[in-house]
């Protein structure tokens, strides 16, 4: 197993390297000039010699390969660079805003399983009944509704009907749990429901396949309770594709935080990424995209490892 993990880690390095190249090139190729964005309408008054000095200060006047090399050096030394705009480090940004995004992501995943798996099970066991049709209607609905729209409707609804808006600022769980939950519940709910729709559909189709197997008929014939048959025998075998899907959906979750944090005005990493992108703050965008890439790769490795735990037939060498 350890050899497998090592091999996977080594294989992920080229993938992450590829991410750095893609994001670096994409930002430089994209139209727009950070100095112009930085100064807004005042940019038109910048003298050429001033522009040259500002670009040199930001490292933008170096050749691209030098800029890329410097960024890789910053990553290797853990510095990750500074925002073009404010001068605060990317590490500061991660420490300040990261916990909220992580909390939203974890709550969303938990919610997606808590809602998606039971709905999928019920839908499979009551196939082609009213319950199944209702469940399938809602899963398709939540697959189709854009999360930013749903988020905006929730914000608007609460404001117009209850005169309510969540607290402002970064309030972590350990600072004030109540206010923290007021901030994160909305984005977590929207994201969780969107992902639960996928989980529910995968659970339903997986279970429908499994419950027709001979060993399930045998288990029932032996007189086991239906709950044991479904949860212990059927679901365990149907879980593998659900877990695989969860790993892939985590990528959806990461991109989803960018959208829902904007909709709910939550000052997490997703919102920071949007702001940095609009402002062409290369350092912040590059490092956040890379971070998301690392998280995605690590989580998928954990998903793969979990197969061995779930299915004794799977051995990694």
């Amino acid at each position: 197993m350890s050899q497998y993990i090592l091999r996977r880690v080594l294989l992920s390095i080229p993938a992450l390297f590829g991410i750095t190249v893609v994001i670096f090139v994409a930002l430089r190729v994209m139209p727009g000039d950070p100095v112009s964005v930085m100064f807004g309408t005042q940019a038109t008054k910048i003298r050429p010699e001033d522009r040259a000095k500002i670009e040199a200060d930001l490292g933008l006047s170096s050749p691209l390969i030098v800029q890329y090399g410097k960024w890789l050096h910053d990553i290797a030394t853990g510095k990750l660079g500074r925002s073009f705009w404010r001068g605060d480090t990317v590490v500061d940004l991660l420490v300040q805003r990261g916990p909220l995004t992580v909390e939203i992501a974890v709550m969303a995943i938990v919610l997606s399983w808590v809602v998606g798996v039971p709905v999928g099970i019920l839908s499979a066991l009551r196939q082609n009944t009213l319950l199944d049709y209702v469940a399938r209607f809602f899963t398709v609905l939540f697959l189709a509704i854009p999360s930013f729209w749903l988020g905006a409707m929730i914000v608007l609804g609460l404001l117009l009907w209850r005169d309510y808006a969540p607290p402002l600022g970064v309030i972590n769980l350990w600072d004030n749990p109540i206010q923290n939950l007021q901030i994160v519940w909305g984005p977590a709910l929207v994201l969780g429901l969107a992902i639960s729709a996928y989980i529910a559909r995968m659970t339903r189709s997986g279970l429908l396949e499994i419950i027709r197997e001979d060993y399930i008929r045998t288990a029932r014939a032996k007189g086991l309770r239906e709950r044991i048959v479904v949860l212990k025998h059927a679901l365990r075998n149907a879980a593998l594709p659900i877990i695989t899907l969860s790993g892939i959906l985590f990528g959806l979750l990461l991109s989803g935080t960018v959208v829902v944090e904007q909709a709910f005005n939550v000052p997490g990493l997703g919102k920071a990424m949007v702001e940095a992108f609009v402002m062409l703050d290369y350092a912040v965008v590059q490092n956040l995209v890379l971070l998301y890439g690392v998280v995605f790769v690590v989580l998928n490795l954990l998903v793969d490892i979990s197969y061995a735990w779930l299915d004794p037939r799977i051995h990694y060498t």
Partner: protein
Amino acid sequence: MQGQPHVGVFSGSLVLLLVTLLMAWASATAQTAPAPPGAAEATDAGLLKAPEASPKRGGTLRWGGLANSTLYDLHQTGTIANMGPQAPMYDLLVQIDPLNWNRILPDLAKSWQVSQDGLTYIFLLREGVQFHDGAPLTADDVVASFNHIIFPPSGVISPRRGLFDAVREVVATGERTVEFRLKEPSGFFLRALAAGFNVIVRKKTLEENNYDLRRVPVYPGTGPFRTKSVEPGVVRRLERNPSYWNPTLPYLDGIEVFHLEFGPKTGAACLAHTIDFCWGIDPVSEQKAQRIKGLTTARVYPTTYWGLWLNFRTKPFDDVRVRRAVNLVLDKPGLIEAVSESVGTERAGWVLPTDPHFQEYWAKAREQPGWRSPTAEDRAEAKRLMQDAGYAQGLKGLDFVVRDIPFQLAWAPMVQDMLKRELKIESTIRPVASGVWYEEASSGHYDLTIHAYGVTLPHVADYWGNSFKSDGGYNFMPYSNPEFDAIVAATARESDPAKLRALIEQGIQILDRDVPSIVFSSAYIALAWWDNVQGHSTATKGANFWEGMRNETWWLAK
């Protein structure tokens, strides 16, 4: 007994004394009784206090609006995103009275003298003023601050440098004396000094940071508040400066300045009372706020031009007949109405609504061709002009660059349609990000483009100077007329109101004739505050957009 005053005399004298004392005390009390709200006018910022009789001390104000300070150097920026969170920490040399808005008050400068020829301004600084780090304010700090603004070193951008073109040098002639020596008289010099961004910082701060404070989030000022903590892009928390040189102020213990995007996000937080003072709500939230008990709204007016540039480098926009034709057929009132629920904008002309001369000018101009909704005669005249210019068949293939801001994206197809229907001018809309727009506009890579920009002062020398004077900061058409340039230069020197009005009239005539750009409107920003926020005069702030942001007289009722 003989020789002893009669008791009755004693009694009478005592009574008389008591009555006299009582009358004197009553008189003194009457003289020191607090003036009714709004009536008292401080003659000096050191005497400023809240207009209400019994302001309460304490509490933390929650201010919400565009406050994602980037480029922390106030001398180098021009956005509310800096002024909101940072202005309370700094003072000015002189300031606009933040309660009555009708005059310039001594601020860090206790007094000043102006030479007979208007070429020398001598300021005497207040004693006993300290920066937040305990260092005393000296003349060298003021000189360094204004050299930073007026004569910026390489790599430092100073948007307001043009306001001080008349200044030859700034010199400290004593520990507390600063002299501004001018090349020529300036009609708005004190007003320029009072512009909200021209704050006084420590000379040592500038030197230690190589004269660039763009990435320095906290640097000492002399203002009523100082930074407690900064979460970039989220909130700046300010606390009361206990050593503030006005012993009465501030009343608040602190201010939390939350960053909220302009428009509905600020509106939502305002209506839910998550914030007490709301900067920049959308028109729909403004209407709703006006119906809520406990909420008050007001509008403030930046000095801005919103409109359409036609690139003079592109034929036939160098032909004034074509520009006049375009101006005649565009329905400006209609364009304003079309975006009225998403952004605050109102009609404007060559003279902007923030200018004291606007009312007089607009009364005559608003129903003239080119400013009113087009009539049949206007359209016929436009077609005739195009025919005279040789473009009766219209134009094809024009590049219409539009910045990715909602109201501009909404306007673009309307403008495109009007030009096509009326004048057969066909264009392709090219939406671009803001950063790209600045590049395209300044380098002339467009045929038509919608613009929206602001300047500092509601004075023609500033907004005409930037917009239509040769080499003006936003003159990207580019338009050049030496006669007009001379008029703008003269307005900068002129302090006599009647002569200034005459110069403005001359300038208007030239602009009416040349039509260097198509002006649609000017902006307003809607503000709102809950009734617990007292001690301010936001309701009458009007055109003093960048001023009165220090919040030193504000207090919380509950």
